[in-house]
């Protein structure tokens, strides 16, 4: 982890990580221990800037091992940012898991870690493809499918 960003009177230069625009932020100390953020183009930048200089937080994504040979990893995420210093301890908890498939996207793996829920991000195994128009053995040969073709 990088050095702490203490708020200095001259201000701290940061790159906002809230979205790919990556605004260059200047965070300066204001009265009462508060921080003033400038350079942000949206409220998320202000929230990120003032939080980053006090207690940096990050969304964590990882994969947890499963009981499946076909899909050995199930991707997960925290549904909100957790304190950066807790990333390691969450990871070691996640790596101890052995998840039984099936799992669905959004299903909760861990109800509360530092105020965040850990949820699965991918449905595994993936949903079956419905056999809409899927050619079966009897579909052998020419088969006209109606559609825009008919509008001509």
């Amino acid at each position: 982890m990088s050095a702490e960003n203490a708020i200095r009177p001259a201000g701290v230069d940061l790159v906002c990580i809230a979205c790919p625009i990556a605004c260059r932020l200047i965070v300066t100390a204001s009265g009462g221990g508060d921080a003033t953020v400038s350079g942000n183009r949206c409220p998320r930048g202000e929230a990120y800037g003032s939080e980053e200089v006090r207690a940096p937080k990050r969304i964590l994504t990882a994969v947890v091992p499963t009981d499946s040979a076909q899909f050995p990893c199930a991707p997960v995420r925290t549904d909100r940012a957790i304190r950066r210093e807790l990333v390691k301890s969450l990871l070691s908890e996640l790596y101890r898991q052995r998840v039984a498939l099936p799992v669905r996207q959004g299903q909760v793996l861990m109800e509360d870690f530092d105020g965040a829920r850990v949820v699965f991000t991918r449905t595994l195994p993936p949903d079956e493809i419905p056999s809409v128009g899927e050619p079966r053995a009897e579909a052998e040969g020419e088969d006209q499918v109606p559609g825009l073709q008919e509008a001509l």
Partner: protein
Amino acid sequence: MIRRTIDAVVVGGGSAGLAAALRLREAGATVAMVEREPFLGGILLQCIHSGFGLQEFGEDLTGPEYAERFIRPALNAGIEMYLDATVTEIGEDATGRSVTALSRAVGVVRFSARAVVLAMGCRERNRGNVAIAGTRPAGVLTAGLAQRLVNIEGCVPGKNVVIVGSGDIGLILARRLTLVGCTVRAVVEIQSYPSGSVRNIAQCLNDYSIPLHLGHVVTRIEGRDRVEAVRVAPLQDGRPLTGREFRIPCDTVLLSVGLIPENELSRAAGVPINEGTAGPWVDADMMTGARGIFACGNVLHVHDLVDFVTEEARRCADRAAAYLKGDPREEMIPVKAGANVRSIVPNACAPGRRNVLYLRSLVVKNDALLELSAGGEKLRTKRLAHVQPSEMIRFGLEAGAIQNINSGTALEVALR
């Protein structure tokens, strides 16, 4: 062999293909999708990090989450799905286009289609593309392959890693490998500026104190059976300063040195390729130089954001649907990359409607001026706070904005 007659075949079931197929179905077209993997979603499935969907959904999604937003509707949209199937040839027949695919489940399928949407994505540049000297030991992989190993297959490619190239994939991988217990010794970038976004430098490298060597080049890979080290030297006037070369011991070298649109199939079908993007030349209808063949997503040009892939794929599908309905095609004005512009998409504009153009800069510049001109006459300018080659520039041109250009004159887009 199975024969199918259908309006459109979409080649590829990743972000571009899914968005295009859904949109074509909404327009009433019959659609077949051919995907090489046994599941839908493409490269998004291995991109388990967040940062996707901020434009499209106003939410911060991971790759698999973004993919499932399209997979679920696609499964219920009545799209004929051929997974674990590879298109081997795109040709011509009496209907328009013939598409031949090999499917593990049903064997050879030959489609007679009136439109084909190319959505095959891109592939990674490899060691051969960047010509790194040295031995050829095990442990030299592309970044995307390493990402697949870690996130899908559950293997770790090595313990001590050097990443070559500072593109977003490389930066995100540096963080990911650190989180699974590898030590990322360094990221080495030949340019004097990072090729990835500043945001990823901040949250992927700085968060974990991973050294970034800008303006440096890997001069040699060492090791007999397995990688043992790389030698790195700073560049001066495009040449490595061998006197200041240093050695970084490592067992794995990961290459994040760019992506190339995957167009073997397109080339074989006679689709003209645009030098600047390495993808097909397309007009404002996203139609390639081969009639009835459309293209969108990373097969057309490499994007930074999946949200823009979705947007482009929908526009492509809208135009393909109009083509299928037999709408008259508008007279178009060719678009040319001018000063400081590496590439531009599309390569022709339709003056009667709104156009969206994507371009890449050749230069790094603050306070740049985007300038549109035709026949030496300036039409439009727009101030851009910052441009760099790794960040795609997107801009819209309202209908009528380029109405009065003489036929035969190109619209030239330049950065000053």
